[in-house]
Each structure stands twice: as C-alpha cells, then as structure tokens.
C-alpha cells in the first residue's frame, strides 16, 4: 500500500501538469473551433438518433469524431475498432493496449465532469454496471451523450463490436474483427461439444464476504463454450451474488478460480477451513486467472477463453 500511495502522489503531480497543458491546448482548440465554426459543414448538423443496449435514446450531431470510454473493457473495444486518433482519453484503470497510456486521464470514480467538458467528446461509450445511470443523465444534461452496451454472452461482445463500428463509421474493421473472433470461438466450441460430464466451476471475486460470478454473467457463457458449467445454477438478482460457506459446500465445485493455491490457502481456506472439503481443493484444482483478462468483456475474449481452457483441460 505504501508504494500505492507513492504512485498516487506521483500520479496527481503528473496529472496536474498534464492538466494545465491540456487547459491551454483546449483553450487554443476552442478558439480555433470558434473561427472555423462560421462556415457551416453539412455533415456536422445532421442529427443521428441512436438507441443503446439499455434502450436509452441518444441524439448525436453527426458522426462522432471525438470519443472515449468510461470502462476499461470498452476502451479495449474502441482500440480494436477505431482510428486511435478519435479516442481522446482513458480512465485511470485502463492499461490495455499499451498505447492507451498516451491519452489524457479522465477520472471515472468520481466522474470528473469538468475535465470531460474540457475534452469536448462527441460521445462516451460505457458498459452496464460500470457507469451509474445518474452519471449518464448528468453528462447528457451537459451535452455529452453516453452509449451503454451490455453483454450476457460472448456473442453479445461481437455484436457490440459491430454496433460500435456502425456508429463510428468503421463497419468494415468491426465486422472483420468480429467474424474472425467468431470463427475462433466456434473452433474452440467444436472441440468441447460432446463433453460427457461438464466440470462445475466456481469463480470467486471476493473472499470476505464471499462473492462469486453468478449464472447471469458472461462467465457462464464462456464456460459453456468450453464444455463446462458455472457451479452456481441459481439465478440471483445481482450478477455477483454473495454466498455462504454452506452454499459452496453444497455446490461442491470441481474447479475453483480466484487465486493461486498458496494465496487462497492463506486468505480463503484459512478463513473458511470447512471449505477444504470441496472437490476442487481435494483434487488440487485451484487456478489463478488473469483478473483484467477475465473481467473485461472485449476483443481479448478469445484469449480469456484460451486461458480458461488451460485451467479446465490441463
């Protein structure tokens, strides 16, 4: 944590500097814009009406040229499809692809409205559950529409890509990417079409209290593609429900994801020694998936499937 604080201090210093530079840049830009604005362009005034995955209606003044995302997974999507010069910012958590580090940072928790206005985006992309709806409403009032996507299945990610392509005029790139990823998913799915006894997998997201990946998450679909199943069959209201030790004992999963064996031994089984009875512990089938890879539904979804495949069929 000490190092964490250090980087935080460093980081604020840095961003302050960047901030001032940006202020000037934005000022200069706005002056330029103001001059150029006198001659109206036909495309800029054309209104576009969009409906996002949550059924919210958005109004755009022409095709968006300056966009960014408030969710790390969405940032990966944008980088995979867009001309990167149209991506104008990143959130503090964004770390993939590495090129994202060249973009100015916008705080997403709490949302830095002022900085967003300064950057003048035409549209902000985000993912359901990451950006609260009231934040989106506030941004709309400030003249910045927010477009939500939601994914329950791997296929949802691919259609999401195509939607982004359509909005941003990059249909060809988006379709190409989506189709090649679809092919890869199909070839993985073919391998595990006839698994006789699907492995029951439990993925923990937090240890005290115990939170896990619920049935209604994209994780369940990934497992299905790999011929396995989410051990949690019951559908809870929350995507990541809290469970009791007894519930997990009853699920008795074959595979447990959530950290290395040593780490879980110390931080999980030490706290809940009763859970050493589950099959995953008895048979030593505990794995440590890469958090950012698994938790971000995006263009690396096939990579995340391959990682899970490695755990399920070692």
């Amino acid at each position, binding site marked *: *944590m000490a190092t*964490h604080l250090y980087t*935080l201090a460093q980081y604020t210093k840095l961003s302050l500097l960047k901030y001032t530079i940006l202020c000037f840049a934005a000022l200069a830009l706005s002056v330029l814009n103001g001059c150029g604005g006198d001659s109206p362009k036909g495309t800029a005034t054309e209104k576009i009406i969009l409906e996002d995955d949550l059924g919210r209606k958005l109004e755009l003044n022409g095709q968006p040229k300056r966009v960014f995302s408030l969710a790390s997974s969405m940032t990966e999507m944008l980088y995979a499809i867009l001309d990167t010069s149209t991506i104008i910012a990143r959130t503090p*958590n964004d770390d993939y692809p590495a090129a994202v580090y060249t973009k100015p940072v916008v705080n997403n928790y709490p949302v830095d409205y002022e900085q967003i206005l300064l950057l003048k985006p035409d549209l902000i992309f985000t993912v359901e559950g990451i950006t609260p709806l009231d934040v989106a409403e506030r941004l709309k009032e400030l003249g910045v529409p927010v477009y939500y996507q939601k994914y329950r299945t791997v296929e949802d990610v691919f259609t999401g890509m195509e939607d982004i392509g359509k909005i941003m005029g990059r249909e060809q790139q988006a379709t190409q990417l989506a189709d090649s990823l679809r092919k890869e998913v199909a070839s993985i799915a073919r391998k595990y079409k006839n698994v006789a006894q699907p492995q029951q997998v439990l993925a923990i*997201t*937090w*240890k*005290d*209290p*115990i*939170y896990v990946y619920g049935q209604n998450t994209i994780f369940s679909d990934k497992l299905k593609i790999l011929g396995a199943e989410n051990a949690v069959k019951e559908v809870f209201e929350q995507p990541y*429900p*809290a*469970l*009791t*030790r*007894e*519930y997990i*004992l*009853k699920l*008795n999963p074959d595979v447990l994801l959530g950290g290395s064996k040593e780490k879980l031994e*110390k*931080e999980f089984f*030490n*706290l*809940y*020694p*009763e859970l050493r*009875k589950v099959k995953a512990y008895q048979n030593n089938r505990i794995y440590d998936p890469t958090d950012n890879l698994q938790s971000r539904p995006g263009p690396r979804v096939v990579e995340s499937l391959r990682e899970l495949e490695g755990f399920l069929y070692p």
Partner: protein
Amino acid sequence: MMGRGLYFVVALLLIVVVLGLGLQVGSFEANATTIWDAFFNYNPDNTTHFAILHLRLPRLILALVVGASLAFCGYLMQAMVNNGLADPYLLGTASGASLGAVIVFFGFVPISMAGLYLPSVFAFAGAFLVTLVVVILGYRKRQLIPSQMLLAGIALSSLCTAMVGMLTFLSDSEGKLKSVIFWSMGSFERATWQLVAYPAVTIVLALLFFLFYQKQLNVLLLGSERAQALGVKVARTRWVIMGVVSVVTGFAVATSGPVGFVGLIIPHVTRAVMGATGRGNLLFCAFVGGFFMLLCDLLSRVIYPPAGLPIGIITSFFGVPFFVYLLFKKNYNFRG
C-alpha cells in the same frame, strides 16, 4: 420473585426454539431427524451433518454470544453513565474495530499471518486502542468523568469513521467496498468453533463476575454522590465496568463486526420486564440479547437466502418498532 423466574424460563425456552429452527435453515435440506442424527449419529462422510455441526451451529452460537455480549455491555454502560441513551459503542469500539479491519482489507498489512486471520485481530486491536484513548481523554483528577468520556467517544468515532470513509473513497475495487459494508453492519458467516471460543469464554466469565458485583451497579443508579455516601467506591466501579465492557465488546465486534441497536434496546427491554434494579437483570439481559440476535440472524437468512442480509439492518428493522412501543408505554421510565 416467581414471576421473574418464569421470565428466565421463557427466555431460555425461546432460545432453544430459535436454535432448533435456525439449525434447519440453510442450503442443505435438513429436518428435525437430520439434525438429531447430526448430533447423535454423526457420520463424518455426510456433508449435511458436517454443515449442521460445523457451519450452522457455530454460527448460531456466535450470534447468541454476540447478542448476549452487546446487550450485557449496553446494560453496564447505561448503568455507569446513568443514561438510557448509552450503548457499548459509546467508547468508540465499533468504529475502532471497523477501522482496524478496513486497514487490513485495503492492503496495508497482509490478510493473514502465522495462520491468524488479521482483519479480526486488527479489529480487536482497533477497538481496544480507540477505547483506551477515549478513556484517557475522559479521565480527570483520578476519576472517569462520564460526560467527558462520552464526548471523547463521539469525537473519536467520527474520526475513525472519517478515516474509513477516506480509505473507502480511495479504494479501486468494488469488493473492498462490500467488505466495508459488511464490517459496518455485522455478519456471522465467519463463525468457526475456534472463533466462537473467544467471545463465548469472555462473556461467561464477565457474567459470573458481575453476578457478585451487581449490588454496586444498582447503587450506582442512584447517582454518584449518593452511591459514594452508601459506601460504593464509584471511581473503582467505573474502572471495572470500563475494563469489562471494552474487552467483551472488543471480542464481539472483532468476530462479527459492529452489530447495532442490540446494546441500546435490550437493556430497556430488561428493565421494562424485570424492573430497574432486579437481581438477575444482567443475566436476563444477556439471555434476551442472545435470543434477539438469533432471531434476527434467522430472519436475515430466511428473507434473503443464501447469504442473509447484513445483520445490523435486521436488528434495526425489528428493534425500532419495539423501541417506539416502549417510548409510548406510559409506565416505563427511560432514565437508566
């Protein structure tokens, strides 16, 4: 006198009934026969038996013990400061414990060390340290001044809450926030037999001790001058109460988080039923506290399976209406 004895029997019976019901609620199907078998024909290969004896029972006992501890400490605090608004957390125990646990969750120290689960250890340390500071601040002319101590407690609690708030705000993960919420509302899900042992032994010892100390406590209710005149060493009695309350609450909070409301309301229930100075008041208060907590735990798991709502939410939901009823009951006097 007969009447009071009857109340004890009723309280005990209620505890047994709720324990019996509580043992049946969980993910594994279990009826009365299964529970009987788990106790008397235990089969180590039967997971249901295992769940009943090693998950459900320690959880219920922990709820019972923590409820008893908090009610008992609330009673002592109300007697000590001679004010019906007092509760065990006035000394800053709850927020101190939360801060201790949160410090671990936010990664300043490892989660476990030498086999010890550090959030509980730090919660206990936090509770104890904050209490110590509050007592030092409430100490003047070789005496504990209750009003000064209360103010110190409120101030330090706010400080700890602010620090928890700051850590929470700066956190980068939603999971951590959930831990903080659980730590501010309480939960019995961590219960194991080893964990239950600490608060259980403490509350039993404290109850035994106060069976012999009850007289001083009742005289204290007359006010410190009169108590002094009647030969009670007021200063020393306050120290004893302080010490016991901080240890008992510390263990309760370190194992389950700061469950609210029990320590405030149950002492009032006790006095409403048993009179202000009854002989068995402390013991009865512990019984009722334990029963109330068991009931709340059961409700929390029935309403919101499987994990149960944070217990503090239930204690308030069911405690407040009863409190209002007491407020309107004419022949009950809220003054300590």
